[in-house]
């Protein structure tokens, strides 16, 4: 199977991470008081998603490099 599923997973999670980080940084902070107990959960969870996305992408990238050589 030519498609390495880790690559699309890496891309979508990185994308989601970036969206959440930006939104968490610019959004009106009152939504976090109202909903998430004062925690800027968008920013923190965005970071978690980005780390996971980059990790999956890196695994897929390393696998494709070792297939080529």
């Amino acid at each position, binding site marked *: *199977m030519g498609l390495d599923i880790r690559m*699309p*997973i890496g891309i979508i999670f990185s994308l989601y991470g970036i*969206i*959440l980080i930006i939104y968490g940084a610019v*959004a009106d902070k009152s939504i976090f008081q109202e909903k998430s*107990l004062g*925690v800027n959960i968008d920013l923190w969870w965005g970071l978690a998603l980005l780390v996971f996305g980059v990790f999956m992408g890196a695994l897929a990238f390393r696998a494709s490099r070792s297939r080529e050589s």
Partner: protein
Amino acid sequence: MHPHTVDYAIIGIYFVFVLGIGFALRGRMKTSEDFFLSGRSIPGWITGLAFMSANLGALEVMGHAANAAKYGMFVNHFYWLAAMLAMCFVGVFMMPFYYGSKVRSVPEFLRKRYDEKTRTLNALSFAAMTLLVSGVDLYAMAILFERLLHWPFGASVVASALVVAIYIYLGGLTSSIYNEVLQFFLIVFGFLPLAILGLKAVGGFAGLEAKLPNPGYAHTWANIWHAADNPMGINWFGTIFGLGFVLSFGYWCTDFLVIQRGLAAKDMAAAQRTPLIAAVPKMFFPLLVVLPGLVAIALDPTTKLMMGGRYDNALPAMLGRFYPSGLLGIGLTALLASFMSGMAGNVTAFNTVLTFDIYQTHINPGKDDQHYLTMGRLATVFAVIVGIGTAFIVLRFNNLMDYLQLLFAFFNAPLFGTFLLGMFWKRTSAHSGFWGLLCGILAAATHYTLYHFHYISYPSDMAANFYQAIWAFAVCFCVTVVVTLFTEPRKEEELVGLVYSLTPRPKNSDVPWYERPGVWAIGILALCTVLNIIFW
């Protein structure tokens, strides 16, 4: 719940990726084996996560959160008693027969072990059950669309069905499995903050325990001895034998929806590892669904405040309560992902059974492979159209979980009796499978009729389902044994690879001990025992 542009954008990106995976795999579907079994080429970790994810439909996610709000930690039995033992059993003892005999479906295994009529009966009952179940996920998806985008229910059903139909039509089982892996990670990352924020809101485990409306809600086992003591109204016999043995083994060991993921694995080791890899995240799933359900009932003991009077709303209500815009998009995507993976699992299992076990066997045998590939695609479209119809049946039921457990008690419970005898008792004759299975299904139907018209009664619908499963299994088991004793056994040489005592054990000597399925299973069960004790 008031989603903003950013939330819609996140959901939109998800649809692009799901359909994109289907398009990327379109060119690889050259033979029917590619379409229905992914060419038996997928690594174990992918089939393992897909095995787990195919089961993560609306029932698992919304249904078990609702049950946790209604019955408390008792719901943990679905995970730590029922699923763990059965998943270890199928990986260690049953997968070698499924994968080793090169069958393409569970009914095909029944033809090899028993005869044609057993296979046909199972294929028909499985096809009916799958279509009835796929409507549940479609229904849940459509309800979500209706609330979010304010589309009418009918349009929402059709739109959700269309997306699933497209990606399976294009990429077959591979597309379904790859999407299930993506969906698995989305579900985990989408619901994990709910557990964290929910626990923080009630003040940790100690705070949660203090706020629960009934102290029994905080225990898995403590109230099991007498039916009157626990909110589900089931004693230890009903729980351990009905749920832990009959229903769970019937589901995890014989339901083609999950077994198909194992058959797509690239080799025997990967096939055996499939359910064992799936068992690890499954063990921790109560954190993602049971815990939010408990927090929901702790914060809203009357169910009127947040949940609008319906336990089924527990999980969406928690998303609305704790997720700000942004994260809300991720949470809603996780819900959608769970419904889609559940629905897609049903559709891929259905199109395989319909094509191989009904169409190729009885309607149009002996055509070339391309013919059956096309048939598989048409079966996909057919399954989705009928699924839309069953979504409207579900609309008339008001409790998802009862509907589903009822179907399982009808169709899966007797089947496990047929498999247990077929695989582990070589004397079991060819005729006995059919009669056992038929009588098991009839027993379930009789029990259901008696219960429905109040000739027998149980403390809760769930208790009725557990006992229905026990009766169906017991009748199937006894009838199979009795018919076997009066009919000719099959020749032993025909049963090699199908019956445990006649099949040479796979050689384990060249595999390091830490890669052996038995060792994995022992590790999983040990860890699971620890969890049971902690949350006693």
